[in-house]
Each structure stands twice: as structure tokens, then as C-alpha cells.
């Protein structure tokens, strides 16, 4: 029995063990010394009601992007007949987000603990941790951690599987992920049924993001009160942020929800260059001008009036030397490419929007009004919210980079130095049309 001292509730880090992006709690011994034992026993077929009460009291919202209360997901699964299963979503298909990857490769035991907690919550006897094909280091770390647990005779009381799914932006959408795990092409399936009704192998499936699972592993240890002592009343707890762009030390940071952007930037060693705008919430996020970002508070409540949200908390600082129009055009092209190709308005609309943005980046503004119309035509008109996110990003660019767009179109001038800041996976087509 290893009893780590209960960490001070009000200090960070909770998840990253004080090592930030370089967190290395891979050996089980180190994990237990740091976090202590997981004080729960899974009883397959018997959901742990006391644990669920604790999770409900914690107010934990899903860290995969939507902040949906974890306890209500459990309720939904428990309302179904049939033996439930757990899927931990480690796909993290969003290029500027790396937080789940960092957790899985640096703190694999915490993710596995989280899968165990999820299983206890719904009374499952099986959990699957799903990650991208390209996440080889993460796969190795998790595999090694599972082997180590077995070698130590550490009985989790459930079967834990590690599965890979194809890389891609949409694969991480839960129905898409389950489709891939079920042997399908990895595209969102029509809902209903939703995963809690009919998911992996047709079973009621409790899907939780990898970071959410890690948070659950800590709530099971330290309780709801401990969890809530950071963050805001509405959005309690800490959360991982992937910060990149023009900052001195890009990487994954843990913040109390409701922290200021300023404090996050200070933690990252400050700006590396003057910044014109921030992308908040990754590729389904929102551009916010540097002026508007002054005093910005990182919570959904604070971002809502700006039409923004934290999403999976990828934040990119766009330096003044870059071109927001060209960056947005590239991402719009990537998002169009990543459409699962099933729903007309998503396929045709995102392609049209990306083409129009590409034109603007090259000084041709003839489709500006069309883009505005197309943005309205894709939102809410697909099986998943992929097009909604992409449209939101482009819409915010049209406002935040209005002056740059005018300069491109009227003066045929791009003030960018040609460097690209926002990452696009290499195997994706980046250019649109010849």
C-alpha cells in the first residue's frame, strides 16, 4: 500500500506531476508514490453509487471539448438495459492539441486508473482505450503500463484493451470512434442510436475523453471538495491547455478554469514576438484579436459573450509577422479535407468556403459575400458538428482579420512573411484547387 500525501487542493499541477509537457510518471512505482492508490474496487454489474455521487458533486465536465457533465453521461448509460462498456477517447485528432497525447505517454497509469473509475461508475467489466494510429509513443507507454500492472499483480478487476483508430480530425467524434472500433470506416453514424444506447459491440457505451478519465482518477482519490477548490463554481477544476505559436515555451499547461490568458502566457515564459490574435479552442475555435484578448478569462462563461468557447483548449498565439487570412485559408482547406464525406452541406459547403478563403488569400475577394452565405448553410446541417466548428473559425476570421482581408483584396497585399503557424498534418492535402 502506497499512500501519497494528499496534494494541496489549491495548487497545481494535479495531472502533470510538476513536469509539464515532459511529465514522466510512467513507472507504476512513481505513479503510486505521486498519486497514491486508487481507492476503488470495480464490481462488474454493480455501478458504484457512492462514487457516482462524488462525481456528481464534483461537477466535472467532459474535457474533450463540450464540458458535458460526466455524471449525466453515467446516468444515460445506466438508464439502458444491457451490460455497459467503457471507451476512453484518446484520439485527439485536433492538430494544435497535444494534451491527451502528453497525458497518455507521460502518465499512462492515470489514464488507466481513469478507465477503471469509468468502469466502476457504470459497472462495466471492460474498457477500451482508443488512440490514433500515429500515436506510437503513447501506445507504447500505455502498453508498457498495462504490462507492468499485470507483472505487479495489480488487479484492476476489469479487462482493459488498447485499440488504434485511423488518424483524422473527425475520427475523435464519439460515434466515429466507435464506428472505427466496431470495424467500420470510422465515420459518424446516424443518431439515434447514440453511444450510450448502442455503442461498442452494440453495448451501452460510456465514452469519456482521456483527460476527463484522468480527472476522474483524481476525484476518486481526493473527492469532490478537493476537485472544486480550483476553477469556478460553474466550471470547477483544472484543465489542460495546449499552448503554441509565438510563446517562449509552447507546450501543455494545466490551469484552473477561469485563469487569465495573461497568467497562462506568463507560465509559458511570455510572448516570443508581438501577437496580433489568439486562436482559442483549436480548429473548431474562434479568433480573438490581441486587443480583445487583454484581460481574457479562460472559462466558457467568460468566452461566451465573445462567441467563443474553450473547446479542447488548444490556444495559438498568432505573431504579427504571420497572415491570419492565409492561416485561416489553410485550416479551412484542412477542415474541408477532413470532412467524413457523408453529408452534402458539409462536403460541398466546407469545400466552397475553403476555396473562397484561398481566393481571398490570393487577393481575389469575389466570393466574400458567398462565403458569408455558405457559413450559414453548413452550420447545423451535418450528422456531426464538424462543419459547425469549421464555420465558426472562418466566421471569426472574417471579423478579426477584416482589415487584412481588405488589404489582400484591395491592395493585393499580404503582410505576412510567408511562415505558417497553425499545424496541418503532413498527410493531409493543404492546398485547395490549382
Amino acid at each position, binding site marked *: 500500500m502506497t499512500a501519497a500525501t494528499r496534494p494541496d487542493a489549491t495548487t497545481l499541477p494535479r495531472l502533470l506531476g510538476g513536469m509539464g509537457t515532459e511529465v514522466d510518471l510512467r513507472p507504476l512505482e512513481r505513479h503510486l508514490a505521486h498519486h497514491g492508490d486508487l481507492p476503488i474496487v470495480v464490481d462488474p454489474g454493480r455501478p458504484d453509487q457512492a462514487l457516482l455521487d462524488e462525481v456528481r458533486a464534483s461537477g466535472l465536465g467532459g474535457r474533450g471539448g463540450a464540458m458535458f457533465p460526466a455524471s449525466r453521461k453515467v446516468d444515460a448509460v445506466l438508464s439502458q438495459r444491457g451490460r455497459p462498456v467503457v471507451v476512453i477517447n484518446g484520439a485527439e485528432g485536433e492538430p494544435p492539441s497535444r494534451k491527451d497525447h502528453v497525458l497518455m505517454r507521460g502518465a499512462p497509469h492515470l489514464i488507466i486508473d481513469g478507465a477503471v473509475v469509468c468502469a466502476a461508475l457504470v459497472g462495466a467489466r471492460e474498457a477500451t482505450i482508443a488512440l490514433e494510429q500515429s500515436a506510437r509513443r503513447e501506445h507504447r507507454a500505455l502498453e508498457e503500463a498495462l504490462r507492468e500492472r499485470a507483472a505487479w499483480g495489480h488487479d484492476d478487476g476489469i479487462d482493459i484493451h488498447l485499440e488504434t483508430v485511423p488518424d483524422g480530425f473527425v475520427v475523435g467524434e464519439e460515434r466515429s470512434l466507435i464506428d472505427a472500433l466496431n470495424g467500420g470506416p470510422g465515420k*459518424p*453514424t*446516424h443518431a439515434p442510436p447514440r453511444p450510450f444506447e448502442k455503442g461498442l459491440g452494440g453495448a451501452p457505451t460510456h465514452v469519456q475523453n482521456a483527460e476527463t478519465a484522468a480527472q476522474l482518477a483524481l476525484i476518486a482519490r481526493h473527492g469532490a471538495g478537493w476537485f472544486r477548490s480550483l476553477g469556478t463554481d460553474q466550471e470547477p477544476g483544472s484543465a489542460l491547455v495546449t499552448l503554441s505559436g509565438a510563446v517562449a515555451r509552447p507546450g501543455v499547461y494545466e490551469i484552473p478554469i477561469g485563469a487569465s490568458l495573461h497568467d497562462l502566457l506568463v507560465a509559458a515564459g511570455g510572448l516570443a514576438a508581438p501577437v496580433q490574435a489568439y486562436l482559442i479552442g483549436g480548429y473548431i475555435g474562434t479568433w480573438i484579436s490581441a486587443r480583445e484578448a487583454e484581460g481574457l478569462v479562460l472559462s466558457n462563461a467568460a468566452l461566451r459573450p465573445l462567441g467563443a468557447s474553450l473547446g479542447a483548449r488548444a490556444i495559438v498565439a498568432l505573431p504579427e509577422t504571420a497572415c491570419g487570412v492565409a492561416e485561416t485559408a489553410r485550416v479551412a482547406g484542412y477542415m474541408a479535407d477532413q470532412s467524413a464525406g*457523408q*453529408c*452534402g*452541406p*458539409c462536403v*460541398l*459547403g466546407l469545400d466552397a468556403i475553403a476555396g473562397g478563403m484561398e481566393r481571398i488569400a490570393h487577393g481575389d475577394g469575389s466570393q466574400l459575400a458567398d462565403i458569408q452565405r455558405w457559413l450559414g*448553410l453548413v452550420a447545423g*446541417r*451535418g*450528422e456531426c458538428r464538424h462543419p459547425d466548428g469549421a464555420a465558426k473559425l472562418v466566421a471569426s476570421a472574417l471579423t478579426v482579420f477584416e482589415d487584412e482581408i481588405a488589404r489582400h483584396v484591395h491592395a493585393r497585399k499580404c503582410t505576412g512573411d510567408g511562415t505558417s503557424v497553425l499545424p496541418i498534418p503532413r498527410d493531409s492535402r493543404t492546398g485547395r484547387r490549382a
Partner: protein
Amino acid sequence: MSEQLGIDWIRCDAHGLCAELFPERISLDEWGYPIIDGAEIASELRAHAGRAVAQCPVLALRLVGRAG
């Protein structure tokens, strides 16, 4: 319980028949995909709605219940 039109976007092939059969609530976008007016369907329109749903060649159009 009132009813609303819903589309299975994966199935819909932009046949456009629904807009012909139920122009009161369905128009088409520039690609031929239906744009649904989400307003509640009053009883005198129910028959039109039902016909559009039944005639969609790929069964992509549905009448779905809405609480309240």
C-alpha cells in the same frame, strides 16, 4: 408533443422531391439540399409533411417528436 421535420444528412442525396411536396416548410439550398423551416407543423400541414416524408426516395426525411 409536437412534431418537427428532421433530416438524416448521411442518407439525403439532394433529390429535392421533399421541397416540391412540402414547399410550405422545405426549400433547397444552392446544392439541392433541403433547408427546413423548423417551426412546429400545424395540423393542417401534417398531411403535406407526411407525404414528403413518405416520398423521400432514400427515407432521409423524418418527422420527429419534440417534447413540449
